[in-house]
């Protein structure tokens, strides 16, 4: 018979991704308790980014999807970066008292 249109992800993959997400959650909470100055924000965003990537690739099946799906998802990220990047370059180059 025909193949299924949506790829069926194995259960172990789902459970592995879930375990990683929980570990990263605990990691981000403990990383916030240590004061590392500006490094805190970087670590926090990095961990959140990895978690989001895991959800997008595995739970949302982008890793198993077509290239077009990949482009659509990537486009969202790209335009978000443009939005944040250009807006922040504007505000952070203003002579504000910080």
């Amino acid at each position, binding site marked *: *018979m*025909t193949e*299924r*249109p*949506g790829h*069926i*992800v194995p*259960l172990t993959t*789902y*459970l592995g991704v*879930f375990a990683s*997400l*929980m570990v990263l*959650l605990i990691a*981000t*909470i403990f990383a*916030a308790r240590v*004061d*590392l*100055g500006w490094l*805190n*924000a970087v670590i*926090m*965003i990095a*961990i*959140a980014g990895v*978690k*989001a990537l895991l*959800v*997008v690739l*595995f*739970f*949302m*099946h982008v890793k198993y*999807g*077509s290239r*077009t*799906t990949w482009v*659509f*998802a990537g*486009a*969202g*990220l790209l*335009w*978000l970066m443009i*939005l*944040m990047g250009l*807006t*922040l370059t504007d*505000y*952070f180059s203003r002579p*504000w008292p*910080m």
Partner: protein
Amino acid sequence: MVSSPGFRVSSFGFSGMNRGCNMESALPHNSEHETRNLKPETLSHDHAHQFDDAFQQHEAASLGMWMFLVTEIMFFGGALTAYVVYRFYFGRAFIQTGKELNVVLGGINTGVLLCSSLSMALAVNAAQLGRRKVLVGFLAITIVLGCAFLSIKGYEYAHKVHDRHLPTPAFSVGHFHYAGFAYDAPDPNPPRMFFTFYFVLTGIHALHMIVGVCLMLSLLRPAWRGKFTRGLSGANFIEMAGLYWHFVDIVWIFLFPILYLSHH
């Protein structure tokens, strides 16, 4: 039937999918050029008639949903950018006010949402494998976890309303009890700004959660009746609902550290 534009008709499939195994509809009944598309392996009851095959239908549904999610990404992205700007402008005030948020409750909420994402992924898996009752079970678990998230959020909000942290004219900094100290600058407007962002960001996220929970509730009955475990395209709608649910989870994955954990 008239096929209207947009992904809803294609992936929802109620009107598009043939009910039962009626081979009569597999025969081309319109123009003769359709005979070229009639391959024996793509049975017409596996996909809505406006698509060539189930793959195309799944792809169309997926791209349509992703396009919607991209608009949502831009929406939350704009709100978060605004937060980042004010976080740097009112640095110290936001840091101090941020300590007022309950990290334990926020962390539990994040765990609850991650579990609900897992149960949603397993629901999609069940639909794809044609397991009707397992699908309903996982949908129910997702709904329960979503409601748990909303309850904890409601509890947090109730405390904040009680402590007059709503950014109304009655806003008061006197009651910062989780932070354990009174805010020491004379101007209450920066903390008020923090809470404005807190309520707008988490409030709109909660609105998305409510929509998600209602969506899952509306899928329970058709799922029980077997609409999503039938043929090759039955699981599409569950999968697209899953995409929405995972996206709402991702938004919270970013909101939690940004609002609750960035007080340094």
